[in-house]
């Protein structure tokens, strides 16, 4: 809400509209610092704040209008805001005068973006991402027209604007950020049920999306003009967004009259002083703009195309088939025994090309997290500069390979979490000082390839989560009842609910609690998960788990009875034939093995999986020393076959099958199952527990 909006809200304040009251309260809270600095406003602001709080507390029918106070407030605020605007105008004029400030013309804040410093790759990413969001908005809005009450869709549109705002704000694209913010606010009001999403509102939202698209596409120029570029309809659109009521009532009154003159005005209302606005809805002028972009296409931009997951999968599957078919050809007796050298060398050549092809197609999908992490580093630096906090971002595990498709999807969530950590997690330097922490905050971004998941952790040493506040909010939103007893970790999970926020201060960097629900949803859409552990006063850790479904792992292929399985090599510490003296039993049941000065439990895989015909004698078998988290144990198998890289595939309908994380197709064209390491260990330890319970009885 901007200042003008605030005044208009005050003027039209209705006592029975909780939403308006909350808005006023939030505005006062948000601008507390500035308001208290201004001696002319401070007393009225305090009085107003007290009055509003009072109003919110009492039931609607008992609320009393304090007209006098409101009028005093309006007068005082108006005066204050006017002088403020003047001051900021002067400031921006000054900035323009300085030649080296080539990125100016923003409304507030100092810009962080300049064409010389921005990484073209990051910018491309931003452009592509935002355009995707905007396209999504378009399709969703169209859907909304047929089903205006679909909250799911409203939420989706809202989130898309929110994400656009978030990233634009990181780059310092103020104009884009402001527009996206206003659009988001509009959708928020729809979401809160303040208005119905009428056709007119949908039009405004669509127009906003189009305008944003235009502005974002323009960024490809990489020129200072492109950053300060304002479409002709920008200001008008902003007005529409901030007071849709006016716009709607105008439209309604017009449609009632329904004269040709009125429809002209109606048209004008949409398009005054904005020739290109017409173009946004119609085809031509916009197309012209586009052509222009094509011509000025900048070679500094990273060239890439987006390919759908399905196509990529198809390619990989087909290449896999090619390799297998080639293997069959190679093993063909006729070809093996033939004397024709050309045939042999052609076949060899084909083999090489096929393998090369496979390598390329695999590498198409796998990328190290490095680029993503570097992006985070950069974003963190920019955020730090704006928030006035100093934070050290430590990065590790950036060489963990991850499926390209997953990388694209984790960008936004990671960005959100880093933003949150800097903005909400890390305390201001003074507070850190008081708490006995070093003034410089610390954030750790760490990736590993563990168990059957890729794990990314974002840890900060900030203030941690405020459990009481979360509980309070959850209760206020009726997510839990007052009496309900919940563990700390249960309570913390509520921060992932839609619209949840415990931040008192809404900043432009991270918003009103929509963040974490977006994060969670994005991760869930790629079968990932997120959880948080918090240590009040000492910070919190967000743990993201991503599935292996699309990933490639180093696997050990081994035999148990007639079966062959794959286990991720990363879990296996050691493999050996145990000697008789290394193995012993407890109570004739629990088997143990002596390994590196420790007695570890032995689990017979054939027993865990109920496979007959396996080797029963430990000294004839092989044991894998198996590592999961901080636990270790020995798994007994028959024999090792090979070590190889495998592409993990889902078991489809049977993906919940206990004990297995997926499957891989090997060179012989047959499938091998991949053991779910974590689950196996759980099973194994459960068995021990049962045994020990039996013993106690």
């Amino acid at each position: 809400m901007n200042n003008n909006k605030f005044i208009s809200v005050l003027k039209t304040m209705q006592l029975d509209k909780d939403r308006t009251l909350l808005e006023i309260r939030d505005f006062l809270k948000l601008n507390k610092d500035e308001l208290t600095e201004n001696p002319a406003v401070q007393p009225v602001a305090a009085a107003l704040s007290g009055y509003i709080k009072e109003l919110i507390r009492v039931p609607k029918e008992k609320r009393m209008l304090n007209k006098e106070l409101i009028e005093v407030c309006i007068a005082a605020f108006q005066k204050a805001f006017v002088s403020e605007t003047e001051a900021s105008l002067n400031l921006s004029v000054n900035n323009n005068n300085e030649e080296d400030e080539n990125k100016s013309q923003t409304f507030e804040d100092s810009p962080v973006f300049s064409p010389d410093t921005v990484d073209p790759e990051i910018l491309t990413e931003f452009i592509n991402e935002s355009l995707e969001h905007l396209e999504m908005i378009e399709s969703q809005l169209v859907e909304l027209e047929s089903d205006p009450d679909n909250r799911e869709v409203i939420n989706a549109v809202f989130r898309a604007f929110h994400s656009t705002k978030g990233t634009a704000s990181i780059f310092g694209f103020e104009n884009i950020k402001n527009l996206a913010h206003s659009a988001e606010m509009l959708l928020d009001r729809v979401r809160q049920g303040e208005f119905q999403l009428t056709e007119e509102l949908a039009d405004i939202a669509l127009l906003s999306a189009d305008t944003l698209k235009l502005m974002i596409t323009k960024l490809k120029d990489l020129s200072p003009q492109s950053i300060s570029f304002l479409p002709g309809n920008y200001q008008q659109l902003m007005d529409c967004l901030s007071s849709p009521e006016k716009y709607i009532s105008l439209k309604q009154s017009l449609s009632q009259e329904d004269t040709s003159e009125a429809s002209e005005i109606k048209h004008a209302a949409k398009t005054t002083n904005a020739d290109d606005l017409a173009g946004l809805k119609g085809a031509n002028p916009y197309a012209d703009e586009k052509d222009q972009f094509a011509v000025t296409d900048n070679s500094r931009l990273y060239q890439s195309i987006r390919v759908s997951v399905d196509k990529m999968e198809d390619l990989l599957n087909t290449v896999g088939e090619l390799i297998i078919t080639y293997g069959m050809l190679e093993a063909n007796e006729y070809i093996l025994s033939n004397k024709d050298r050309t045939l042999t060398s052609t076949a060899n050549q084909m083999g090489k090309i096929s393998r090369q092809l496979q390598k390329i197609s695999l590498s198409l999908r796998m990328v190290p997290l490095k680029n993503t992490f570097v992006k985070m580093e950069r974003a963190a630096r920019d955020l730090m500069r704006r928030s006035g906090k100093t934070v050290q971002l430590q990065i590790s595990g950036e060489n963990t390979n991850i499926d390209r498709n997953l990388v694209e999807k984790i960008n936004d969530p990671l960005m959100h979490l880093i933003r949150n950590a800097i903005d909400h997690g890390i305390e201001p330097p003074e507070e850190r000082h008081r708490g006995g922490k070093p003034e410089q905050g610390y954030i750790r971004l760490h990736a590993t390839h563990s168990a059957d998941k890729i794990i990314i952790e974002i840890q900060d040493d900030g203030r941690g989560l405020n459990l009481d506040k979360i509980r309070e909010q959850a209760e206020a939103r009726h997510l839990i009842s007052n009496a309900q007893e919940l563990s700390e970790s249960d309570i913390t999970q509520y921060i992932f609910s839609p619209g949840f926020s415990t931040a008192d201060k809404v900043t432009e960097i991270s918003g009103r609690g929509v963040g974490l629900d977006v994060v969670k949803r994005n991760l869930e859409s790629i079968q990932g998960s997120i959880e948080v552990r918090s240590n009040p006063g000492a910070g919190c850790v967000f743990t993201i788990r991503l599935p292996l479904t699309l990933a490639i792992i180093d696997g050990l292929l081994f035999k148990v009875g007639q079966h062959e399985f794959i286990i991720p090599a990363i879990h296996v510490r050691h493999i050996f034939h145990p000697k008789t003296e290394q193995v012993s039993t407890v109570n004739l049941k629990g088997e143990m093995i002596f390994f590196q000065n420790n007695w570890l439990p032995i689990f017979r895989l054939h027993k865990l999986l109920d496979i007959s015909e396996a080797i029963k004698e430990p000294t004839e078998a092989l044991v894998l020393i198996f590592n999961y988290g901080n636990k270790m144990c020995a798994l007994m198998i028959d024999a090792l076959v090979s070590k190889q890289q495998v592409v993990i595939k889902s078991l489809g309908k049977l993906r919940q099958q206990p004990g297995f994380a997926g499957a891989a197709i090997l060179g012989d064209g047959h499938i091998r199952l991949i053991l779910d390491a974590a689950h196996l260990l759980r099973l194994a330890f459960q068995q021990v527990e049962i045994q020990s319970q039996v013993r106690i009885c």
Partner: protein
Amino acid sequence: MPYIRPGSRSPEALKADKQKYLAFFLAQEKYGIKLELVKEIIRPLFITSIPGAAQDVLGVMNLRGHVIPVANLRIKFGMPEHPFTDDTRIIIVDSDDGGMGFNVDRVDDMVFLSSGEIDETPNFDVAIIRDYIQGIGKIDLRSLIILEVEKILASYDLPGKEVAGNGAIPSIP
């Protein structure tokens, strides 16, 4: 050129009202499933068994790079097992999570039936299979037991921690 009586509808038009079914044999009984759900019909491929899976789940096979679970309908319906023969086929049925295969003794034909030609299942004691029968169709005085593929597929959904399907977006409460 077939003769079409004036005023009558062409065979195509008649067929358009009807639903297409794929008929196949399981232990001499004729079964049918909606053809639109059938992705393809293949000869048996190598099947990798899955320890601990349901008894009727034969395992998974590699269908051109896709991992497809295969189940044995004979076992599922409590019929005696039968080794694969030259006639054995695997019917691949489409589903959101990548499809699934079912082996059948022999694939018969495509059958057109309108809803009027499908009777309700008589109330006899066939507890295992009853849940999966949509109705009994009649063609040429022979019965065609029409199976509800969706229900059969759903019976393989295991309860698990990650309930969300492939890319399925859970709704916001």
